[in-house]
């Protein structure tokens, strides 16, 4: 464990991050919304802390070890979340408390999209922009983290993805070098964002809203510049654009990369995770739309279709945009949507949840055990596509699932013990650990009424979900710190 090396990297990270405060600063200048001071001081503070941590150890050039990797990844999210809260605290409006500011910042960076702020329209434009940008940066961090960094540490969805190597697309380590991989992914991410922003703008959003929503759509975040979220625009066209881009962002980015490089979309369909992802979402959409229509929540089938489709994709990919008050829909549909967020996006996407490929493996493993009862002597390999998955990977997925359920239970109990009603507590923890955003009952529209201890628990849940459980929990074990 080399603290100096970790400190050096964190210092650099903070300095780089401080520059992300410049765009909102410019927005503030142009809009004259009174948040200039807040962003200036936040920039100075962040840059100052960064340079102070970096200067004493700038000549430390030791090779990073595996354990340093875990610390850096966790620090990346916790420290940036803390620093990212600064503008919310410093600004005169909204002038959030420390707890609220950290909650908002964590929710942004983990692309959860749960907010404590009400009456968004009254906020300064620069703060609104800053929230959207936090999500976008978080999404980019996730992609690089999920595709490039976590697999090296031996965890994360892409790790088991690598075991797959689907037949024709052999180059699943996208490029030989990790920086090249990160760069390639960044281009795809940027390309998707630009395409999404343009589509929104053409469909009738203002430039400001188009950019802001493109940021949070491609990051599968869920922050909006309006209280009514996407529903504010009341345009089926915008709804469908959002659906398309949420679906795209929920797909493994390495599939986009392969499709882009080979100029062919064949790779998508050959990927079994992608097919399972579409199958699951189609089922959720089907049941939601039929449910809405059968319970006469909407009189018009077209309304039921548009709202059901949008909400199923938005919740299923863990984005958390809303066009309707889905938390007031009939109980079965609301809880179905909440459960669909447990599956979330594909590995290597910006979506949260357990990830489709893990669920696919769990299902296949379950089927294998059933077959084994019928044929006790049989050798039954677990396959994804045509490739057999190593039993080591299956074990890791079971371990992940067990920890996911256990963490969920512990936090649910903790939240319930603070006196919240059970549905609120359940949905709040689910929406946080899955990086979804909106919950049911008391946390449907926003989290402003949640008490402070609850917010801290949820912050932890969001980080836990985003860091794929293992990364954060390994830091909490004594064995990790023993020399």
């Amino acid at each position, binding site marked *: 464990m080399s603290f100096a090396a970790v400190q050096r990297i964190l210092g650099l990270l903070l300095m780089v991050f401080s520059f992300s405060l410049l765009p909102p600063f410019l927005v503030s200048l142009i809009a004259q919304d009174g948040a200039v001071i807040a962003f200036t001081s936040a920039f100075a503070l962040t840059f100052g802390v960064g340079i102070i941590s970096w200067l004493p150890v700038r000549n430390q050039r030791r090779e990073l070890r595996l354990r340093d990797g875990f610390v850096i990844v966790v620090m990346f999210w916790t420290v940036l979340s803390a620093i990212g809260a600064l503008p919310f605290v410093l600004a005169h409006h909204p002038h959030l408390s420390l707890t609220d500011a950290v909650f908002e910042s964590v929710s942004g960076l983990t692309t959860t999209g749960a907010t404590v702020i009400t009456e968004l329209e009254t906020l300064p434009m620069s703060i609104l922009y800053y929230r959207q940008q936090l999500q976008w940066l978080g999404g980019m961090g996730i992609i690089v983290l999920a595709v490039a960094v976590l697999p090296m540490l031996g965890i994360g969805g892409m790790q088991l993805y690598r075991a797959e190597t689907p037949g024709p697309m052999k180059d699943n380590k996208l490029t030989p070098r990790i920086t090249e991989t990160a760069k390639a992914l960044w281009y795809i991410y940027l390309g998707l964002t630009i395409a999404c922003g343009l589509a929104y703008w053409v469909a009738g959003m203002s430039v400001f809203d188009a950019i802001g929503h493109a940021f949070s759509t491609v990051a599968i975040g869920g922050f909006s510049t309006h209280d009514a979220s996407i529903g504010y625009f009341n345009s089926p066209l915008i709804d469908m654009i959002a659906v398309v881009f949420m679906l795209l962002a929920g797909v493994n980015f390495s599939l986009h990369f392969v499709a882009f490089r080979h100029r062919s979309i064949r790779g998508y369909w050959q990927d079994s995770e992608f097919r399972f992802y579409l199958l699951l979402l189609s089922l959720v959409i089907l049941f939601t739309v039929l449910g809405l229509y059968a319970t006469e929540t909407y009189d018009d089938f077209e309304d039921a279709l548009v709202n059901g489709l949008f909400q199923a994709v938005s919740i299923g990919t863990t984005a958390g945009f809303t066009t309707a008050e889905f938390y007031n829909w009939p109980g079965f549909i609301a809880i179905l949507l909440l459960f669909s967020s447990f599956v979330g996006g594909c590995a290597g996407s910006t979506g949260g949840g357990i990830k489709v490929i893990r669920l696919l493996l769990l299902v296949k493993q379950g089927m294998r055990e059933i077959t084994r009862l019928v044929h006790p002597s049989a*050798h039954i390999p677990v396959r994804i596509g045509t490739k057999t998955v190593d039993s080591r990977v299956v074990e890791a997925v079971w371990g992940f699932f067990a920890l996911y359920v256990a963490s969920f239970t512990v936090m649910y109990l903790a939240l319930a013990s603070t006196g919240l009603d059970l549905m609120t507590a359940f949905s709040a923890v689910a929406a946080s650990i899955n990086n979804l955003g909106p919950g049911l009952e008391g946390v449907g529209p926003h989290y402003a009424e949640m008490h402070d201890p609850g917010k801290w628990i949820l912050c932890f849940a969001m980080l836990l979900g985003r860091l794929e459980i293992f990364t954060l929990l390994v830091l909490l074990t004594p064995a990790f710190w023993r020399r």
Partner: protein
Amino acid sequence: MKIIILGAGQVGTTVAYNLSNEANDITVVDQESSLLRDLQDRLDIRTVLGKASHPSVLERAGADDADMVIAVTNSDETNMVACQTAWTLFHTPTKIARVRAPEYLAHPALFSQGALPIDVLISPEQLVTDYILRLIEHPGALQVLDFAGGRVRLVAVSAYYGGPLVGHELRTLNEHLRGAEARVAAIYRKGRAIQPEGHTVIEPDDEVFFVAASNNIPAVMAELRKAEKPFRRLIFAGGGNIGRRLASSLENDYRVKIIEHNEQQARRVSEDLRHTIVLQGDAADEDLLLEENIEDTDVFCAVTNDDEANILSAMLAKRLGARKVMALINRAAYVDLVQSGAVDIAISPQHATIGTLLTHVRRGDVVMVHSLRRGAAEAIEAVAHGDKVSSKVVGRAVEDIKLPEGTSIGAVVRGDEVIIAHHDTVIESEDHVILFLTDKRRITDVERLFQVGITFL
């Protein structure tokens, strides 16, 4: 013909045995002197001790004036290099090599004249696999052999009580069939061949060889025995090359299980196959077989490399209620011992392989040879060339051709058309004629029949 056989293993020995009976000069090369001594004691051949691919060894074996090299050592690489050596240094016209690894076989460009000069590749595992596949496709058949690219098949079945034709004269066959045509090429009664004539009456337990177009075969078989339901559930004992190939070509249409003893091999096989259930265990384990519902299994086929294990596990499966059991048996003596008794069908890999080699030894334009009844009989597909003057078959009706004794013409393939032979069928030039010889000693007469006279140029 001067033939050099490289490798005195199972295939090499069988080839030497079959070819030395036909007035060929055979030289066998091997590194094992005891094998060679043993061979020389039994057969009229020459032997050379040494590594098959070495030029000096090939030279001593007489590669200078050899007509053919057959490389069947147990190493693919040795076989390939031996053919290269024979071609480059000795210009041997025909080079046949056994290459097993699918890795090599997947790239035909490797075996062109500019690269590895091998004229004929034989892969015994593939031949045996195809052989078993045809048996599974035709329930009730003892043997199914392809001619003319699979358009015509020769099928051996044993006649049972209850078959509509059993007890009737052969001439009524085509009336029974209504449209479909077939010709009985030979009948074996109590192990002896009888020449089928129109008035011959088929008796129960006769082994009947008939020729028919591929799609008519089920109809013909239904005449000779009660119609059998198609196979559905298969168990293969042994997950080696053969078992794996069989499973991968059958698993989409049948319910296939493989029993493999070795744990690592079982895992590898299970990873290779998609729908097959791979069981790890002993194929002769009664509990395992019962657990896997052996009594409802249509075919139990033992294809390990151990003759005794194959026979015993097949016998056990039969006793436990498997509908049909087959066993792969290398040792010729065992084949006679168990065929049609303890085991329904004994599969001899040598016989499946030897035909391919014989095809290239035969004079005249012979495109396919199948060795039958442990090499005593032979079915061949020969192409007729020339005209009425230069050829002894072209332009003549079947009844006018002077066929040697015990030989019959089963069918004629003209282009894509399959013509079942009648006494008045006239052979044309370029026809593929399918003949059945109950006595292989007549083969030279048949060869002569299909050779074109000097006048034809």
